[in-house]
């Protein structure tokens, strides 16, 4: 059902709607839609793939950063003299040796310094750095630096960060308020008044960490005014931009090169401090400097998921139609902004996507605390609010006596609609996803009919296919690509700034290039994510590369094809419009016996006209409304997903065993089915870890209690359920060949889906993440008490009383 634009859009300013390229009748693709092996597979299985920490340069030094042991303290003095005397120590730097210009990934709140100047703001804040002949000497040097601190009272509880008498963390931000949002669409109060039923619930999220397996590393080389940084980064462009800004260099004198990256999930999107400190150490010593975090330092640097406190009030009709929603959230931002402004907006913005309702109010306070800064983790701000809303909706369904799957079908968003916060949705197969998940899981036979302790739950999710606006304001296109065909036509190289961090963009972009050129995937080579040799692209975040980088690659490939067919036309004495090329074979459309190979035409082109190249770029149209914060959450296209899960609860221990998960995705045209389902597996896995086990915990001094992969419990191969990943037929008119995102969307439904399955199994609601055995056990116990069962309390036993 199409609706008029939301009331707060300026008159006449209607949300952008894609003109709606028709679905091509001939969908017989030669290269896309096929499970081609990863282009870097061989290098990765043989150990030849080199990650940043694997690189060695002549005369290279090793560098480490000294961090704060206090959550909040004033720096009184720093004495580096003892450290400097140690043999093998080549440089020791503090805030006095580096630019004092504040930086951050969010331009609206640059609030970080390379090294702390007056105060340290969390355990792990950066104070000094060393460059030494070897790693062992680095640790000795760090221990020899004497820092005198005056410990200050710290803010560790986000719910008290805004109190009048709370310690002040950044003088510029009174009451520790980092970001405040108040958005109001339609008439929420009126909708709640008119509703047949109104319910309010409160949910609490968890602080989680991306925990990529590869630790952050950066190696800096500063030679004759030019700085080169090899980095495990998700965005060479943003690194280049911010490094150049910090040191006052032209961007042309900063080269950022991505090596192979061992996972990012949002945590490697912004500069880490290693690049800045390493650059200064490299300039001072005149030698390459390799900087790296160990696992505990990674947890302290963080930029993982924000913990959110989420109050939801929803009014529904007697049939369960959602009439109005009020979301009132607080999020713990930690000591700095990181990507948190966007996170705060995303938290509310993305709640309007999967269900169709008109009246929506969103209030958010992102507060500073003396804990590690939070940022963007897979799904950005959306997964915890999605968990909360899906749990809230199940509560409502239960109160009204409506089947949880049915209430979702009644509210499911339809294609070609506009959300209350002015997101134009083109393709949307939410209904089909729910129906397929229902049928594949055997919902009808299971709901209400499972044996004791077993339950089934459903939840939905939706995510952007690239952000409508870049992180800092610029008119650069979002993606660009070049293709160079080899002189003899036997290979072609794609040059792209797109950033493969494991998700497989190098592979699918080469498939797309080959499809557009009429070439084979097997002959494609790729040079990617090097700011000096590849054209600009914003990188790997907001699930943007398949659609955005893909659009640029398609244009470049089509330019190659056009020139190739013109050459072939000259050679065959036929009009180029009458020719086509597929998998490297040129043929006349009406006389298939007339053929030429791609190689022959490409070689002839090079001899007569020079290099055969193609270029492409992509910029999204102007998207979204005109209210404050309207750009966050805009996208040319949105993916949709439904998940159903079946769980078994051990009543004695509260342990949750997830048996099966069915994920059904609407992700438009698929480029590589094998890699697509692999993305779903990984996103679901990450969502599962966050749902049941993962949580970064702190002691009363703000020190992380579990900064290891042994105690921060990411799931092992023994913890995984049976995963059934499936897609629905879909075509997105705004994406090249009809593509949309998949990599983050599958993280979104998981937490709510498990909570709802537990709710179904035991009738107890666990209102905070993670859904640990302790919490499930405690909830079961409360329920049994409430049911009048006489429960023995071991803690009340005399033997435990001193």
């Amino acid at each position, binding site marked *: 059902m199409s609706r008029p634009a939301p009331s707060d859009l300026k008159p006449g300013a209607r949300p952008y709607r894609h003109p709606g390229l028709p679905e091509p009748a001939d969908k017989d693709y030669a290269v896309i839609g096929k*499970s081609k*092996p*990863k282009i*870097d*597979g*061989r*290098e*990765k*299985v*043989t*150990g*030849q*793939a*080199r*990650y940043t*920490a*694997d690189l*060695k340069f002549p005369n290279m030094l090793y560098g480490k950063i000294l961090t704060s042991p206090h959550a909040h303290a004033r720096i009184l003095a720093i004495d580096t003299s003892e450290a400097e005397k140690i043999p093998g120590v080549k440089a020791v730097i503090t805030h006095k040796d580096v630019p004092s210009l504040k930086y951050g990934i969010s331009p609206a709140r640059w609030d970080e310094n390379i090294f702390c100047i007056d105060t340290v703001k969390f355990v792990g804040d950066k104070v000094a750095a060393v460059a030494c002949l070897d790693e062992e000497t680095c640790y000795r040097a760090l221990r020899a630096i004497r820092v005198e601190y005056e410990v200050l009272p710290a803010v560790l509880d986000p719910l008290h960060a805004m109190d009048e008498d709370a310690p002040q963390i950044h003088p510029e931000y009174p009451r520790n308020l980092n970001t405040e949002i108040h958005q109001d669409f339609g008439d929420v109060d009126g909708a709640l008044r008119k509703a047949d039923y109104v319910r309010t619930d409160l949910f609490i999220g968890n602080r989680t960490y*991306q*925990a*990529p*397996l*590869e*630790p952050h590393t950066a190696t800096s080389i500063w030679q004759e005014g030019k700085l080169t940084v090899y980095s495990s980064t998700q965005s060479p462009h943003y690194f280049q931009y911010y490094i150049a800004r910090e040191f006052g260099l032209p961007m042309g004198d900063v080269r950022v090169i991505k090596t*192979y*990256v*061992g*996972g990012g*999930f949002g945590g490697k999107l912004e500069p880490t401090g290693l690049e800045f400190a390493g650059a200064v150490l490299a300039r001072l010593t005149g030698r390459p400097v390799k900087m790296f975090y*160990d*696992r505990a330092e990674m947890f302290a640097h963080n930029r993982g998921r924000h913990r959110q406190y989420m109050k939801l009030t929803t009014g529904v009709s007697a049939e369960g139609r959602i009439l109005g929603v009020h979301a009132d959230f607080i999020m713990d931002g930690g000591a700095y902004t990181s990507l948190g402004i966007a996170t705060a907006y995303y938290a509310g913005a993305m709640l309007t996507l999967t269900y169709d309702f008109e009246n929506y109010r969103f209030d958010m306070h992102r507060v500073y605390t003396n804990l590690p800064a939070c940022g963007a983790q897979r799904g950005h701000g959306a997964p915890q609010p999605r968990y909360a809303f899906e749990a809230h909706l199940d509560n409502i369904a239960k109160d009204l006596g409506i089947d949880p799957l049915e209430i979702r079908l009644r509210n499911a968003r339809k294609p070609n609609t506009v959300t209350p916060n002015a997101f134009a949705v083109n393709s949307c197969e939410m209904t089909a996803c729910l129906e397929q998940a229902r049928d594949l899981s055997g919902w009808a036979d299971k709901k209400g009919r499972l044996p004791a302790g077993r339950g089934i739950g459903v939840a939905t999710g939706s995510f952007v296919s690239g952000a409508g606006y870049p992180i800092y304001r610029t008119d650069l296109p979002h993606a660009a690509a070049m293709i160079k065909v080899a002189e003899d036509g036997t290979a072609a190289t794609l040059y792209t700034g797109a950033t493969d*961090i*494991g*998700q*497989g963009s190098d592979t699918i972009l080469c498939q797309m290039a080959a499809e557009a050129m009429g070439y084979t995937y097997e002959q494609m080579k790729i040079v990617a994510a090097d700011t000096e040799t590849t054209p600009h692209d914003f990188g790997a975040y907001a699930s943007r590369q398949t659609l955005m980088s893909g659009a640029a690659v398609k244009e470049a490939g089509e330019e190659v094809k056009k020139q190739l067919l013109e050459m072939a036309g000259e050679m065959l004495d036929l009009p180029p419009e009458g020719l086509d090329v597929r998998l490297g074979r040129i043929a006349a459309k009406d006389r298939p016996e007339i053929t030429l190979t791609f190689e022959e035409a490409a070689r002839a082109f090079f001899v007569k006209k020079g290099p055969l190249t193609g270029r492409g770029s992509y910029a999204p149209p102007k998207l979204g409304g005109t209210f404050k914060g309207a750009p966050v959450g805009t996208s040319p296209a949105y993916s949709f997903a439904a998940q159903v899960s079946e769980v078994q609860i051990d009543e004695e221990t509260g342990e949750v065993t997830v048996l099966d998960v069915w994920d059904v995705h609407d992700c438009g045209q698929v480029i590589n089915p*094998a*890699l697509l*389902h*692999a993305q779903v*597996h*990984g996103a*679901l*896995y*990450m969502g*599962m870890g966050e749902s049941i086990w993962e949580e970064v915990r702190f002691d009363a001094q703000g020190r992380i209690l579990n900064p*290891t*992969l*042994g105690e921060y419990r*990411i799931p*092992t*191969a*023994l913890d*995984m359920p049976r*995963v059934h990943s499936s897609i629905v037929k879909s075509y997105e008119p705004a994406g090249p060949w009809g593509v949309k995102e998949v990599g983050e969307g599958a993280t979104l439904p998981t937490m709510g889906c498990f909570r709802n399955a537990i709710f179904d199994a035991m009738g107890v609601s666990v209102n905070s993440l993670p859904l640990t055995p302790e919490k499930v056990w405690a909830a079961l116990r409360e329920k049994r008490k409430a049911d009048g069962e006489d429960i023995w309390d071991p803690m009340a036993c005399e033997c435990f009383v001193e």
Partner: protein
Amino acid sequence: MQAITDKQGVKRYLIHITVNGDQYSPVIKANTLLVNLLRDGLDLTGTKKGCELGDCGSCTVLMDGKPVDSCLVLALEADGCEIITIEGVARHGELDRLQRAFIDNAAIQCGYCTPGMILSAKALLAGNPHPTEPEVRAAISGNLCRCTGYVNIVKAVLEAAEVKP
């Protein structure tokens, strides 16, 4: 074991170690970890470091046929041992069936866990050529992967077990 002492009184030891069939006689300090000897001393950077605490399994190598976390093994302890790293799995440029299966089953994403994962699986198949799925899961449960949910990795190992070596 031969040892020499430097001016600061720190001893260095001469060890003999076979890595991927090649014999080396490096001189090392007592606290040198096997993973650092392999990566820094022998330039075999296919062995990855993810935690240096024995939690993640990224640095798994085979020591006399057994999978070990090379960050928990002192290089001294490897004296006289035969080590296989990921660089030694393919023979004369020919991929091992496990490597082939990892590629064919889209079992690789970022690839950081892949070397350790393949070596753990290799040790499993050497002792148990036809494992069940639970046996595969148990064998790789010391190798963390943050990308794949293990779904395709388990599939790859099971497929490799079907193929004759």
